[in-house]
């Protein structure tokens, strides 16, 4: 089930929420049973056959985690670590089987000529998220003295529908205690209002902004996938639009999840913090998909040694972490390249910090602005392989962004601004820009300007006061209603495919 659909908003959510607080009157256990049942309905809405997989994964991880916890508490740490390791291997094997088997088989076939038959299978919704979520639990269980929980609380934590299929990745220690607090099960008008406000603003980000920019990004990237060349403005508009689409899509989803959880009196951590305003690439990763960054740092980078064994080891660890981060997003070389680019940028930034002298005080504002601009430019350019359908398509978009396939502008624009004809060739319409109409160029440019203004200059949802959130809601709510009930089609959330 999708958050941005009428069936969820008008049907599922009121029933799930109302049922939770009614069941809460009967006691926490009843409320948790209701919550798990709601999670199963939510998860199995499009394919009920996936529910047993989810429940089996929850049960298996809880059994292994409980065993490991008992061993850890009994002072048998090596044995506890063995159980935890076994559980993680099993989780990753399940994830690998569904997500990466085809990719591995295709590459083995390409490299070694060995044809490994792997049946095509649909990726279970959210498997990357609930797998990582449960790995966090297992790691916690392997530590002596960590908080323990019963199966029902654990199932409520993993199966809590706001974060079940696309995060944020929340620490068990942050959520499970909340699920056992008596106040959680009583309706709270303040939380309901605050949660609903954040949910509606997240919904607006997704339906009003992200889907608008998708319509500008898709023509360019789809054309590149078909082998077409893009002119300078077509390539840049598509890439700038995708950069906005993915930000509004995923941060919108995260806001919806945070708002929904708040309606159930559960606090989720913030997942985005105006990442495109980051002063450097390391800061970007502290602001973009914060919960994944936290996971990768705690469960990959630090265990690999972090920054403890010299700069070369640190560089290796950063690269390995970012490559894995890239691969987590999808089984494809374009995702590996995206991860590698970010890894190299982070290594370059770490080296720069070590080697370059600090800027003089009077130049610091300039240095900060330069850092922001460079980071933003890099992040935008790196989205190209992330979005492109293959390496060749990515190369075509980059080619276009460099102006190597020409610079063209609509002849109507050149008639109004003749000096532009010195740099651009006149064409009736830009083929791969929006709807390829006469007015597409001003349309796309205006929408991009508005989108980047919001992203770079406006405070994010979590920085807004309650009063300003209401102003934002007043500006967006009618468009959200329009998109929810009257848009001919709805774009799926981008992160569902991961």
């Amino acid at each position: 089930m999708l958050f941005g659909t009428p069936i969820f908003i008008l049907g599922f959510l009121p029933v799930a929420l109302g049922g939770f607080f009614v069941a809460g009157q009967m006691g926490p256990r009843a409320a948790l049973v209701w919550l798990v049942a709601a999670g199963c309905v939510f998860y199995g809405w499009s394919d009920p056959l996936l529910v047993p997989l989810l429940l089996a994964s929850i049960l298996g991880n809880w059994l292994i985690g409980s065993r490991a916890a008992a061993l850890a508490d009994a002072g048998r740490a090596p044995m506890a670590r063995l159980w935890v390791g076994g559980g993680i291997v099993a989780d990753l094997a399940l994830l690998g089987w569904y997500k990466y088997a085809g990719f591995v088989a295709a590459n083995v076939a390409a490299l070694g000529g060995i044809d490994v038959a792997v049946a095509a299978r649909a990726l279970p919704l959210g498997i990357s998220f609930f797998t990582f979520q449960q790995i966090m639990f297992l790691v916690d269980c392997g530590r002596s003295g960590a908080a323990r929980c019963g199966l029902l609380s654990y199932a409520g934590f993993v199966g809590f529908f706001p974060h079940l299929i696309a995060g944020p990745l929340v620490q068990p220690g942050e959520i499970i205690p909340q699920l056992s607090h008596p106040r959680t099960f009583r309706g709270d008008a303040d939380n309901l209002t605050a949660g609903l406000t954040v949910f509606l603003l997240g919904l607006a980000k997704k339906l009003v902004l992200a889907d608008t920019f998708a319509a500008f990004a898709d023509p360019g990237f789809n054309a590149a996938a078909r082998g077409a060349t893009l002119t300078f403005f077509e390539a840049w508009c598509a890439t700038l639009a995708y950069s906005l689409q993915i930000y509004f899509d995923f941060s919108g989803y995260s806001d919806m999840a945070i708002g929904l959880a708040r309606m159930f009196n559960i606090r989720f951590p913030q997942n985005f913090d105006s990442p495109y305003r980051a002063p450097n690439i390391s800061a970007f990763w502290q602001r973009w998909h914060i919960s994944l960054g936290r996971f990768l740092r705690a469960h990959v980078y630090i265990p690999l040694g972090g920054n403890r064994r010299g700069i070369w080891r640190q560089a290796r660890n950063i690269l390995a972490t970012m490559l894995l981060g890239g691969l987590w997003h999808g089984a494809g070389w374009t995702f590996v390249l995206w991860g590698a680019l970010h890894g190299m940028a982070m290594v370059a930034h770490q080296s720069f910090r070590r080697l370059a002298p600090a800027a003089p005080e009077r130049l610091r504002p300039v240095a900060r602005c330069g850092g922001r601009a460079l980071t933003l430019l890099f992040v935008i350019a790196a989205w190209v392989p992330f979005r492109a359908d293959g390496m060749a398509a990515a190369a075509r978009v980059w080619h276009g962004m460099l102006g190597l396939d020409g610079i063209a502008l609509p002849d109507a624009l050149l008639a109004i601004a003749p000096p532009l004809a010195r740099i651009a060739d006149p064409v009736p319409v830009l083929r791969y820009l929006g709807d390829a109409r006469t007015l597409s160029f001003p349309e796309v440019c205006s929408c991009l300007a508005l989108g980047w203004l919001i992203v770079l200059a406006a405070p994010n949802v979590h920085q807004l006061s309650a009063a300003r959130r209401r102003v934002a809601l007043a500006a967006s709510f009618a468009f959200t209603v329009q998109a929810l009930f009257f848009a001919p089609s709805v774009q799926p959330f981008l992160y569902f495919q991961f």
Partner: protein
Amino acid sequence: MPALLAACAVSMAVYGAVFGLLVGRPLAHGPLARQIDAKLALGAAAPSPKLVILAGSNGPYSHRCEVLEAMLSLPCINAGIAVGIGLDYLFARWRPFLRPGDVVYLPMETAQYIRSRSATRVGPDAAIMLRHDRATLVALPPDRWAGALFAVDARAAIMALLETLFTALGVAPANADATTNRWGDHVGHGRSDAAGSPAFAIGGGSGEPTAADIRAGYGTSLIVAFVTWARARGVAVIGGVPAALDAVPLPADSIAAIRATYEQLGGRFLELPGAARYPRAAFYDSPDHLIEACQIAHSIRVASALGPLLARAVAAPPAWTASFGCAAIPL
């Protein structure tokens, strides 16, 4: 919670006031509304019996009423506008001008049959009706009222503001009168004007709908309702196929489904040789638009086939058509 609800209410009120009363799309919708009105005026002035071509832009670009009128000795109005204009709206506007004995020819683009209800209710005609033609809107079903009230999405809102600004700065909308003759045909679209169209750049666009898609299509249901209405009033409805690219064949069962749309309720269907599929060289800027020479050649074919169906003598094509040569459509 009251403050939250108040913010939502303010949002709805401002949206309704701004896009329902204050800001329109003078550059995008203005020319469409004027074209519709101009063609209706032709229909009102033409004596009955008359031939009216209703379709999307394939109507004016690929059909020449000027030729059909001369060959069939029947007043002809080319009333096609664009695929985005809702069929229910188009039919509602034309019903008052159709008399017993009139003939309506519908060489509808296949996309018209499968256009969804949700796409139809927020098409450009929704905004046109809300701003300029509320009488027609009120006559349509209630979901069209809601669609008209909520036809403006974020993109359209920005374009509405931009177009209002451009208009204030003196930018004039495209003048369709210069390229439309007195029959409503588009004229002057020769090869030299052919623009790079994404549909052509990718090799012909997507495939044609299946028979099941056509039978289940919302557009099909609107056409069926129109055929029923027309039959009851003595107006002859003849379905047809649009001129389209031969690189994208229309399956035989899809043609049969289109035929059945008309024939099941007493309409007729005009089948053209090769289902009016022509090579790329015949087309102008999209797979729905023939170049002018081929528009004329195709119209001669249509007139030759329509004559027997209407039991009318078919005269030779007007002499002026000889100066146009379309190698892609041999006659």
